[in-house]
């Protein structure tokens, strides 16, 4: 046993942090007040950003990292972990977020990408979460150092269909690896442009090597429970809470729904009388060029 004293930012610490979020709900917040609402509703963590995805869509323009002043205020307002979004490839935004004391960075397609390549996440002390639509994309992000994967879905729409599609895609691709021999696994790795060792690990463990959350369009307790049924380890909720009529009630109900996703009686009770969910946009009406999920590769 090595007797060196201290080590920070190891893979074990990064993935371990992500594991502690399992079975939980991580909520998008833009102010310290919203962060307190999320914490009191039972969120395991909050995601700090300057506007929720639905507003980012509406506003247009370039979406960037949130103001460090506000991120700092959010960190001070709650005792649960605080995550924040950086643009794809924008490692300096990620460095700034790390310097502020953020617990995890979301390298997110919701913000305007800064590069066609993603951040070299292994160089950071704090862990990263990244979006993925399929197994190849998930394993490319893990190879770059992502400690957590989430479905991309289609953020800011309140339409869960894309998150469902991405989760089923990843789970199905992993299932199909079962029983393949080394040569077949190598072929798959080549086809999906992923590290062969990671593909082999997925085949053996029948899951991603890191925690896999659902995100992108989750707007109701039923949506959250649906994603848990499909194999999500937990749920990110973006616009779904603070774009609804009664955010504290919606937030608490989604937390309950994740903990009781397989109990329709509880789901019926917590879904009652929550007021209007976010209005949302049917994904099929969004022009291809405006889809956030096609950002990144």
């Amino acid at each position: 046993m090595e007797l060196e004293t201290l080590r920070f930012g190891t893979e074990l610490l990064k993935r371990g942090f992500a594991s502690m979020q399992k079975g939980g709900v991580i909520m998008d917040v833009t102010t310290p007040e919203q962060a307190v609402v999320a914490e009191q509703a039972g969120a395991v963590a909050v995601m700090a950003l300057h506007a929720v995805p639905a507003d980012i869509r509406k506003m247009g323009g370039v979406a960037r990292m949130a103001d460090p002043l506000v991120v700092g205020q959010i960190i001070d307002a709650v005792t649960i972990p605080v995550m924040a979004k950086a643009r794809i490839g924008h490692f300096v935004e990620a460095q700034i977020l790390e310097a502020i004391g953020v617990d995890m960075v979301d390298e997110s397609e919701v913000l305007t990408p800064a590069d066609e390549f993603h951040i070299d996440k292994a160089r950071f002390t704090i862990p990263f979460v990244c979006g993925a639509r399929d197994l190849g994309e998930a394993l490319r992000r893990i190879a770059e150092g992502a400690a957590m994967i989430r479905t991309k879905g289609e953020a800011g729409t309140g339409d869960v269909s894309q998150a469902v599609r991405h989760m089923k895609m990843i789970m199905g691709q992993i299932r199909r690896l079962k029983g393949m021999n080394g040569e077949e696994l190598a072929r798959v790795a080549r086809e999906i442009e992923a590290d062969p060792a990671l593909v082999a690990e997925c085949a053996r463990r029948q899951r991603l090597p890191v925690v896999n959350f659902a995100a992108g369009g989750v707007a109701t307790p039923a949506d959250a429970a649906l994603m848990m049924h499909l194999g999500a380890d937990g749920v990110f909720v973006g616009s779904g809470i603070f774009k609804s009529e009664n955010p504290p009630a919606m937030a608490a109900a989604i937390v309950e729904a994740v903990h009781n996703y397989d109990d329709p009686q509880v789901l019926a009770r917590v879904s009652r009388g929550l007021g209007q969910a976010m209005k949302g946009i049917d994904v099929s009406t969004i022009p291809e060029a405006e889809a956030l999920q096609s950002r990144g590769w």
Partner: protein
Amino acid sequence: MVAFQGDVSEHVSAAEQIFGKGAVSEIRSAEDVSTCQGLILPGGESTTIGRLLAQRGVAAAIVEAVGRGVPLLATCAGLVLVSRGVDQGDVVPLGLMDITVNRNAFGSQRESFEACLEVKGFDRPYRAVFIRAPVIDRCGPCVEVLAMFEGRTVAAREGPVLALAFHPELTEDLRFHRLFREMVEAI
């Protein structure tokens, strides 16, 4: 295994290596607690787990079971929950151990670390994984301190409760799980 939120599956697989497959079950209700010979409170978010324990009546069932002498292994968030008092946040602890704790005593995830500890009763150092870890800042007279890190208590035992600020379920070294098995077998 209390299975509301946190790294439940890691804890289950570590416990299965020590107790055998089929010997470990997941607790989601008060009734589940009454059939167990040992209890584990995993890591996760102490506010979230604490709230769920109270809502489902599992908190009272655990207090009752530990009162009967059923051993309890509490890690990280679990350590916060077995204490008598917490410095910050709206965690309602179960008061199973005469300790008070500092939550997130080392800071944010950037300050999370791995370190080697000298543990009372272990013949060689133990490599511990601290993730936004708490520390015990006050121990009552009946609490036995098992390990310190930089002068702060990170592992302790009082009667049937074994509380750790770090995550024994995330590494291959299962000596703390073996110690817990000895506690279960001694009953």
